[in-house]
């Protein structure tokens, strides 16, 4: 909402307060002033100057050659055609380079041989009026050098207010003035507040015509409907002062009648519509609900079909307007309009909202009706339009230039012409409750309750702490006690409320089951992120929206994804089911900037259209019982090649599957998570893996003894890497895991490392180490040996075994490999004898050979 400071000061006494003071006060009241902008309708370079000489132009009868003195003392030659120019006169001087309101740039020129360095302006040239018989004569006391815009009092400041949706009453300058008046204890200008007693005697019975207009409301979606008949309305453009104010408010001037209705709308926040009576067909207006299929061409020239239940204004001739949204073209005000009907009504905000949304028509009117208008102010608003239409009405220079027009008027009102049948809401307020909720002293609250009268609240009754108040008809946002408490807080000022810390009566953080679980997840995620960062990954955040093209580039399909119905980009309507596509995109972007070896990770939710009861850790027990789409917290990471760039210490290290596996192992150990196992895809096609991975160099990840599937890790398919402008020879490595599933597995997994050992004894006796190398078929994985060693039934002193060598080459068969293991033996109560170690080693060797089909390497 744009508010002219000058206009505002017409409605409330602002003496001694500048625009900045007003802005500060409004912001403190909750009417946030976003910007203050000075506006000058006349170029500030156009200044007051004095004519020191005016003589007949030597070569032209109608022109005068003048000398104009500026503040600096400089005297310039100016040729002027006005009959009233004379020495000693203070005038508006437009120097070379200045710009007139119509856009004309003043240039130095020679007029019939005489040099002219500027222009002496008429009222019309300054955009003040149509007067151009002579130049503007300024009072002799006007000081030379002052900007003309200031000398005429035309400079203004526009305040842009962010009016919250609950404050429809502040979508008019009067509402804002009321707030300021109450806060600053300033008086509102009586003529304006008085409703229909608006200066001009247009309610004088002698002006009331015999014309009858009839209004009718046949829907509950319109609480009041008022219409004023006027005859002899002015034609053509509205006065310049009115146009200037409309422009300041962000509106476009149209014609006298429309501008007057818009002017009152801005002034009072009440949308007003004017009909050309002759084009109405009959002097009847009815507010009713539309019947399905009815049609109307609105003022913007679009023919629209209506839906049953929408509010329309109609008469016997058909639908005339879309109530609260936009008028109809058929009864539009035109050049020749003389008799009009001015309508002000209170339509249902919800219905106006639905209609405006359906048609995509957000208008000044719909904006205000949606937020609620004052049904008690309708009559005053239409009379105000009538009074403006009376010629010469209005403040500011240029007023009074229009020929007098006699307006005759008749009012019709569904509320009996006085609005008395409107029932203001009554609310009981407890002073002590208000003090308690706000944290203010009782005395302060009492004083504030008294002062609510300045905001229009009526005191009906008081019984001790209990006050019964009548809510002003313009405050639709005040419906229960707490709303009045907010008013008290607002008027006392939030800055007067003390700072205090609340007493804590709870059982401590994590008292609730949900809180405890979430606390633990939060801490775990934070520390997982820290470990990822220590592994050289930079955390990134990306948007979750994906499109078909992006997915198909990775061999994925959008089927089964959750879909956004109103996406920001039509090409990205789906919610991601994986973090990898956006990570790859960001890595590729870094490569395009010449940056290799980027390592990124993201921890974020993924979604899919699999519906049912979900077990997500972010859900409460209640929410787990609802049918919801799949939503899980994932951790995804991408490491672009190389893993480490060549340095003086050594050559480049490639990024590969094992580097990434090591990162995952680091996470597992650092956070005592359920043990991970890495399983190759069981099918040659790698169907358990995403299609953008190379199935020969990737694995499915399981957690804990239950083998809970978590995700996968692997090298990007070289073809996909090539399509993404990544390196197809040194492909990036990626992993993605379900953090929630891993957390759950770590909590319940019986054989997981997540279960801290109940006692840990440090062994004081020395270890014995023995190495054995086994030769086995290349296709036999290390996991087979690992499993055999873990299951060794006669284990006595073996502490652990570690693979230290993998060999393929001329010393073993062509389809064979050698795996070297280091076995460590130790006893908890003595130093082991050589023979004991050798005996267990020999037996273990036989067991491993039997279990794996391997033979000892000679």
């Amino acid at each position, binding site marked *: 909402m744009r508010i002219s400071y000058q206009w505002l000061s017409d409605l409330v006494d602002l003496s001694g307060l500048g625009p900045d003071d007003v802005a500060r006060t409004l912001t403190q009241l909750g009417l946030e002033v976003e910007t203050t902008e000075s506006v000058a309708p006349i170029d500030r370079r156009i200044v007051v100057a004095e004519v020191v000489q005016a003589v007949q132009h030597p070569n032209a009868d109608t022109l005068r050659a003048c000398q104009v003195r500026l503040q600096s003392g400089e005297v310039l030659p100016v040729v002027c055609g006005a009959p009233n120019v004379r020495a000693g006169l203070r005038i508006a001087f437009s120097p070379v380079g200045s710009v007139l309101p119509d856009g004309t740039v003043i240039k130095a020129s020679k007029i019939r041989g005489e040099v002219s360095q500027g222009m002496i302006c008429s009222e019309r040239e300054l955009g003040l009026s149509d007067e151009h018989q002579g130049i503007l004569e300024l009072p002799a006391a006007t000081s030379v050098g002052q900007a003309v815009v200031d000398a005429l009092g035309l400079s203004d400041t526009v305040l842009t207010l962010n009016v919250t949706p609950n404050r429809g009453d502040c979508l008019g300058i009067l509402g804002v003035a009321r707030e300021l008046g109450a806060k600053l204890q300033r008086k509102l200008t009586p003529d304006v507040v008085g409703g229909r007693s608006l200066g001009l005697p247009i309610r004088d019975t002698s002006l009331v015509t015999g014309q009858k207009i009839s209004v009718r409301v046949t829907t509950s979606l319109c609480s009041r409907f008022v219409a004023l008949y006027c005859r002899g309305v002015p034609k053509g453009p509205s006065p310049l002062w009115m146009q200037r104010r409309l422009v300041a408010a962000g509106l476009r001037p149209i014609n006298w009648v429309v501008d007057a209705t818009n002017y009152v709308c801005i002034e009072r926040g009440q949308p007003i519509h004017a009909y050309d009576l002759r084009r109405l067909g009959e002097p009847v207006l009815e507010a009713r609900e539309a019947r399905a299929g009815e049609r109307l061409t609105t003022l913007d020239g679009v023919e629209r079909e209506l839906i049953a239940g929408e509010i329309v204004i109609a008469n016997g001739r058909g639908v005339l307007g879309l109530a609260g949204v936009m008028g109809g073209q058929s009864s539009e005000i035109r050049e020749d309009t003389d008799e009009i009907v001015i309508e002000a009504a209170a339509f249902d905000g919800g219905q106006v909202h639905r209609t405006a949304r359906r048609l995509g028509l957000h208008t000044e009117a719909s904006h205000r009706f*949606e937020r609620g208008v004052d049904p008690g102010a309708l009559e005053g608003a239409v009379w105000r339009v009538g009074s403006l239409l009376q010629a010469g009405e209005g403040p500011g220079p240029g007023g009074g230039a229009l020929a007098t027009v006699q307006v005759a008027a008749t009012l019709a009102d569904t509320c009996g012409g006085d609005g008395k049948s409107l029932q203001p809401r009554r609310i009981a307020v407890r002073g002590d409750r208000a003090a308690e909720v706000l944290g203010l002293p009782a005395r302060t609250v009492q004083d504030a309750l008294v002062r609510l009268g300045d905001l229009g609240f009526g005191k009906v009754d008081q019984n001790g702490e209990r006050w019964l108040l009548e809510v002003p008809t313009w405050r639709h946002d005040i419906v229960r006690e707490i709303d009045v408490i907010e008013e008290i807080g607002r008027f006392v000022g939030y800055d007067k409320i*003390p700072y205090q*810390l609340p007493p804590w009566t709870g059982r401590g*953080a994590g008292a609730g089951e949900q809180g405890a679980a979430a606390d633990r997840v939060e801490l775990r995620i*934070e520390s997982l992120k820290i470990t990822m960062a220590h*592994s050289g990954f930079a955390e*990134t955040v990306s948007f979750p929206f994906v499109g078909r093209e992006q997915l198909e580039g990775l061999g994925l399909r959008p089927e089964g994804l959750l879909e956004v119905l109103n996406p920001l980009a039509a090409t990205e309507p789906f919610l991601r089911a994986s973090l990898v596509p956006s990570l790859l995109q960001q890595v590729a972007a870094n490569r395009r900037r010449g940056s290799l070896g980027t390592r990124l990770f993201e921890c974020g939710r993924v979604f899919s259209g699999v519906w049912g009861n979900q077990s997500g850790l972010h859900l409460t027990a209640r929410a787990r019982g609802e*049918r919801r789409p799949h939503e899980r917290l994932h951790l995804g990471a991408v490491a672009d090649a190389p893993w480490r760039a060549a340095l003086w210490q050594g050559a480049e290290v490639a990024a590969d599957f094992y580097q990434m596996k090591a990162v995952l192992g680091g996470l597992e150990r650092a956070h005592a998570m359920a043990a991970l196992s890495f399983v190759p895809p069981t099918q040659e096609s790698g169907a358990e893996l995403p299609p953008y991975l190379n199935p020969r160099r990737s694995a499915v990840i399981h957690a804990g003894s239950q083998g809970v599937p978590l995700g996968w890790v692997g090298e990007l398919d070289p073809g996909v890497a090539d399509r993404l402008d990544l390196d197809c020879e040194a492909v990036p490595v990626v992993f993605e895991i379900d953090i929630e599933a891993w957390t759950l597995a770590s909590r319940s997994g019986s054989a997981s490392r997540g279960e801290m050992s109940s006692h840990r004894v440090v062994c004081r006796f020395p270890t014995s180490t023995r190495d054995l190398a086994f030769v086995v078929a290349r296709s036999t994985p290390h996991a087979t040996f690992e499993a055999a060693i873990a299951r060794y039934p006669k284990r006595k002193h073996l502490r652990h075994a570690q693979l230290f060598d993998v060999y393929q080459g001329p010393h073993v068969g062509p389809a064979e490999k050698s795996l070297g293991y280091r076995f460590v033996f130790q006893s908890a109560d003595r130093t082991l004898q050589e023979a004991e170690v050798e005996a267990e080693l020999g037996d273990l060797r036989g067991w491993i050979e039997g279990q794996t089909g391997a033979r000892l390497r000679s």
Partner: protein
Amino acid sequence: MTGSLTETLEREFDKERAALLADAEALTVRAVQGLRQRYLGRKGRLQAMLESLRDLPKEARPAVGKALNQLRDRLESETATLAAAAKEAAIQRLRETAPLDVSLPVQAEGQGGSLHPVTLIRSELLRIFERLGFEVWDGPEVDFDFYNFGALNFPDNHPAREMQDTFFVAPEAGQERMLLRTHTSNVQVHGMLTHPLPIRAVAPGRVYRCDSDPTHTPMFHQIEGLVVDRGISFSHLKGVLDVLVKGIFGVEAKTRFRPSFFPFVEPGGEVDMACSMCRGQGCATCKGTGWLEIGGCGMVHPNVFEAVGIDSEIYTGFAFGFGLDRMAMLKYHVQDLRQMFEGHREFLASFPIWT
């Protein structure tokens, strides 16, 4: 026979020993260990000879055994001397080595890792809230209207809903429409429906609005706070938020509260912080006002309490919501919001892991 074998062994040992003594480079602790292993070790040559005693006639054994023992004593003593010399040489070598170029660049394992500024500010905030006794709550990002709007006193067909441009999500066939949460306030509703009173909780997370321009992204981060108890007042809200802002921006940071409107709080307000760039003097960051808006807040609306079955006569509470992205930008001097979501390596690497 044995005699010549011991002599051969001794001669070979002496030859190796001499070679080590002759070459300063070769005389290392490890080389001496190897020498000892070969001659005196568990599978060494001397051991083999001792084992071969068994093959000798009984009467020859004492003499040969004695000779072997003498030899062993000698070799032990020689290797010990050698080992001492090797150690001495090693110590000398390292002490006399040419000085390092300590300015050579090195890379730590995992260099280049960092945490996102939103994660950093989130951790800082959670540390403060933890000290104040708050729990951390979480909630779904795709949710039903009820949790995001309905229970939070947003009437249907009211412009208040348009304060937040909502992304709608296609529902399961025939079911209620879902949305991407527009604020973390949905977690308030989830929590109040299930958690025993009193409540002191915060809920950080991602939120979504159908909006994109230089200062708005379709996804951003918020942290929600909720306190419900008997006797909670607006002054408690001010107290907690002031502690929070001072905790993040330093003790000299100042807060200002002014009325505003959010349907789920009444009285409702906005919190401003004295501009951290100009200390409230007015600059480009605060658009000359000296104040920066950092979040919305207010007393929980009785309609919200009623929607979740809490008696609004007995209990009062406050709630607040801050934009984490904006706070991170202020705290870490990030100029452009969009950079936060582009994954630009240099940008990300400019942040640390801990603050």
